C-alpha cells in the first residue's frame, strides 16, 4: 500500500452521506486513505491528478448480495471476474452469497474464497455463510466457526430458510455470535423469502401477464407468507432478520409495521425490481394490456428472475419504500449465467440477471425521472448496506478524512448503450441489452488504487501497483 502514488480528484461534486456533504471540492488520497476532502487542495509531489469537472465523487458502492459462483460454477463467474465487473459498476465492496458448490457452510470453503478474493485483490469481498449444512434446510451449519472465518451474515439464499423451526434456531443462535470484522455481537439472517408450495420454479408474477403467456405465476403471497413468518420469529427471538430482494407491496407493509413495533428487521431491493415490471417478460419495456399481440421478444428468458418482476404498482411502491427508508438499501442479487443456461424456453431457462455493470446506470433513471434524490440513491448504495450488516465501524461507505479510500467517480448525464459483450462479468444475461442508460461510472478507486478507469478499461492492478 505504501508504494501507491497519491491521487487527487479535482473539482468534483462530492457527495458523502455519512456527513451529509454535497459540495464542489477535491479529494486527496494517500496511502489508501482519504487524507483530505475540501476545496482547492494543493497536491503533494508525484500525485496522480484526475480532473473531475461535471462528475460526482462519492463512496464506492457496496453490494451485500452478490453471486460469485466460485467454487463450483467457474464457467458462470469467478471471484476475479466478479470483482472486475463490480469495479466497473462502481462497487468497491461485494458480498459473496453462500450458494457456491460446495456451499459456504464450513470454514475451509470460507477460507478458500477469502484467499481467492485477496489474491484477486481488486475490491473488498465479504462473505455470507450458509444457515444450514449444505443449504439443505435441516441442520444448522457451524455458525460460530464461520463467523470466526469472517462471515458477516448467514443465508440459505437461492433457497429460503426451509422451515420456521430452522429460522427460529438460526435467529436465536446467531444473535450471540461475534462478528469478527466489527467486534460487535449478532449476525443477521438473510432470508430469500419464498414459500415453495406457492412458487417453485415460476419466474413470472401471478397476474394477467402470466396468464397471457400461459405461464403459472408466482404470487406476491408466496413471498409475503415467509416475510410474515420471519418477522414473527425475529420478534420472538430478538434476532436480526434481513429480507433479501423484497418485491411486493404486501412485503413492504409487513416490514413497515415490524419496524414501527421495534422488531429487528431490515430489507433490501434490487435495481431490477426498482426499474422493471412483469411486462418485461413479454419483451415490453413499459405498460401494456391484455389485447396487445405478443412479439417474438415474448418469453424473454433474460427477464426471468426470482422473485419475479412484479406489477408497475409494486415497482412504484418499492421506489417509495426505498426513499422512505422502509427498505433500507439496494442490493444487486447479481446472478451470472452462461449463454446456454439462458438460451432455453422460458420455464427451463436459468433464474437471475447479471446486474453489477448496469446497476448504477439503470438506478439513475429513478434520479432523472425525479423519483429519487441523488444523495438518497448514493446513501442506499453505500452507507445503508454497510449499516444493515452492522459494519459501520470499518470505515467503509464513507469518504471522511481517515476512512478507507473507496471512491467512485461518475458522470450523471452520460448516455451509453448496454452491450453485454462488453461486460467484464462472465454472465452476459441481462434484459437491458440495447437499452440506453443515462449515468455512467467513470473511475473506481478501491483502497486508494484505481481499479477501473472507463478510458483505460481495467488497469492491471497487480502489475501496476503491487
Amino acid at each position, binding site marked *: 500500500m505504501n508504494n501507491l502514488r497519491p491521487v487527487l480528484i479535482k473539482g468534483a461534486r462530492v457527495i458523502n452521506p455519512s456527513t451529509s456533504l454535497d459540495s464542489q471540492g477535491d479529494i486527496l488520497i494517500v496511502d489508501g486513505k482519504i487524507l483530505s476532502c475540501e476545496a482547492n487542495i494543493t497536491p503533494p509531489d508525484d500525485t496522480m491528478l484526475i480532473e473531475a469537472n461535471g462528475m460526482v465523487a462519492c463512496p464506492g458502492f457496496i453490494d451485500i448480495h452478490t453471486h460469485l459462483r466460485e467454487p463450483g460454477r467457474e464457467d458462470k463467474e469467478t471471484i476475479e471476474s466478479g470483482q472486475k465487473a463490480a469495479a466497473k459498476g462502481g462497487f468497491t465492496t461485494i458480498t459473496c452469497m453462500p450458494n457456491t458448490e460446495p456451499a459456504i457452510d464450513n470454514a475451509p470453503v470460507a477460507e478458500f474464497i477469502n484467499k481467492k478474493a485477496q489474491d484477486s485483490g481488486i475490491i473488498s469481498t465479504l462473505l455470507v455463510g450458509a444457515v444450514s449444512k449444505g443449504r439443505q434446510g435441516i441442520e444448522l451449519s457451524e455458525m460460530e466457526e464461520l463467523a470466526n472465518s469472517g462471515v458477516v451474515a448467514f443465508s440459505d439464499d437461492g433457497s429460503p430458510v426451509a422451515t420456521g423451526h430452522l429460522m427460529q434456531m438460526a435467529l436465536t443462535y446467531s444473535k450471540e455470535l461475534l462478528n469478527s470484522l466489527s467486534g460487535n455481537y449478532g449476525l443477521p439472517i438473510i432470508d430469500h423469502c419464498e414459500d415453495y408450495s406457492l412458487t417453485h420454479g415460476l419466474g413470472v408474477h401471478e397476474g394477467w401477464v402470466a396468464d397471457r*403467456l400461459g405461464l403459472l405465476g408466482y404470487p406476491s403471497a408466496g413471498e409475503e407468507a415467509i416475510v410474515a413468518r420471519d418477522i414473527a420469529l425475529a420478534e420472538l427471538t430478538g434476532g436480526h432478520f434481513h429480507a433479501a430482494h423484497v418485491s411486493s407491496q404486501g412485503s413492504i407493509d409487513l416490514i413497515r409495521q415490524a419496524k414501527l413495533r421495534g422488531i429487528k428487521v431490515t430489507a433490501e431491493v434490487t435495481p431490477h425490481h426498482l426499474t422493471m415490471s412483469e411486462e418485461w417478460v413479454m419483451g415490453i419495456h413499459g405498460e401494456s394490456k391484455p389485447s396487445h399481440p405478443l412479439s417474438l421478444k415474448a*418469453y424473454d428468458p433474460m427477464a426471468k428472475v426470482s422473485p419475479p418482476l412484479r406489477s408497475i404498482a409494486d415497482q412504484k411502491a418499492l421506489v417509495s419504500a426505498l426513499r422512505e427508508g422502509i427498505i433500507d438499501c439496494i442490493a444487486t442479487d447479481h446472478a451470472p449465467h452462461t449463454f446456454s443456461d439462458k438460451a432455453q424456453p422460458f420455464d427451463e431457462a436459468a433464474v437471475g440477471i447479471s446486474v453489477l455493470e448496469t446497476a448504477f446506470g439503470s438506478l439513475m433513471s429513478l434520479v432523472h425521472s425525479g423519483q429519487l434524490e441523488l444523495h438518497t440513491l448514493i446513501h442506499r448504495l453505500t452507507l445503508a448496506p454497510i449499516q444493515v450488516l452492522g459494519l459501520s465501524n470499518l470505515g467503509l461507505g464513507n469518504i471522511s478524512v481517515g476512512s478507507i479510500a473507496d471512491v467512485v467517480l461518475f458522470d450523471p448525464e452520460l448516455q451509453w448503450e448496454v452491450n453485454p459483450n462488453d461486460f467484464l462479468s462472465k454472465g452476459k444475461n441481462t434484459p437491458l441489452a440495447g437499452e440506453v442508460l443515462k449515468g455512467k461510472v467513470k473511475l473506481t478507486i478501491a483502497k486508494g488504487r484505481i481499479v477501473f478507469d472507463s478510458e483505460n478499461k481495467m488497469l492491471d492492478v497487480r502489475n501496476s501497483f503491487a
Partner: protein
Amino acid sequence: MSSNQKITPNRKHVLDLDDFSKSEIDNLLHSATVMKEVLNRDIKKVPSLRGKVILTLFLEASTRTRVSFEEAGKLLSADVINISGSGSSAEKGESLLNTALTLQAMRADLIIIRHPLSGAPYFVARHLDHTSVVNAGDGRHAHPTQGLLDLMTIYEKIGSLNDKKVLIVGDVLHSRVARSNIHGLQAAGAEIIISGPPTLVPLWLQSNDKDSPITYQPNLDVAIQGTDVVMALRLQTERQASGMLPSIREYTRRWQVTENRMVSANNSAIIMHPGPLNEGIEISSSLAHSEVAAINEQVTNGVALRMALLYQLLTFNSESTEELAI
C-alpha cells in the same frame, strides 16, 4: 379466389391468433372451405406444395393434431417428415435451440412444433432466420390452428358471430385451446363467457376486471342461458390429485354439459370439444353423440384449415393465390 390479394400478407409464422385481424381470419377460412372441397373429392391430392419440406417436431404426445397436419401437408404434395420426442436428439440431451438450428440447416421450409412448455415456438422462431414456424400447441399458452378450425366450424353451423354468445366451460387455467379461442372469438365479434371451477380459472379473469374482455360465471346453469356455442375443455384427471379439485364426481355434477343444461341455451346452439374427450366427464355421453355435437366436424375442418394455412405460409412470397382454385 376472387382477387390476387394475399390471405395473410407477409406472415411468416403462426404462433397464436392474437396478431390475426378479422379480415385475415375470414380470408383464411374462405380458403379453408376451398380446401374442404378438395378434401371431399375422391382423389384428394393436389400438387400445390410439391418440393416443399415440412417437419413436424412433436415433443409432447399428440395424435389428432399431428396426423391432421401430416395429412394436410401430404394432400398438398409437400414432403412431411415427422420427428417425435422419443428417438430424437431431444432424448440425448440436445437443447431445443440446437435441434431447431439443425432442422433449419437441413433447409426445412416450415416447422410445426408442439411443446410442453409455453412459449417454446416463440423461442424457436426468434432463433430461426429462414424457416416458418407453426405452433401446434405450446404448454398452456396457445393452439392457434385449433382456434381457427373452431371458428370455421362455428361459421358453418351458425353463421356470423356478431352478437352471439360463446360459453367456454372447464379448466381454462391450463387450456391453450381456451386462450387461442378467446383471441379468435374476440376478433370475430363474439361475447365470451367462462364457467368452471374457480381453482381452474385465472384469478384476473374472475375479477371481471375492466381490462378483461370476458365474463366469468361459476354457476354453469346461469352461464349457459342464451348461449349459441358451448365449448367444453378437456379436464386432466390429475387436477384432482394436485389438490385443485375435490373430485371428478363433483366436477361432473357442477360443470358437465348435459342435455338438461343445454335446454337453457339457444335452440340452434351447438356443442364443441377440442378432443380427446373424457366421455361422461366434460360432456354427457348422450349429448356427445347427439346431433348438436360438432366434434367430428371439428376434426374434418382441422385438416382443411391446416391445408389452407400451410399453403398460405409456403407460398407467401411467390405467386398469387389465384392457383388456389385447384
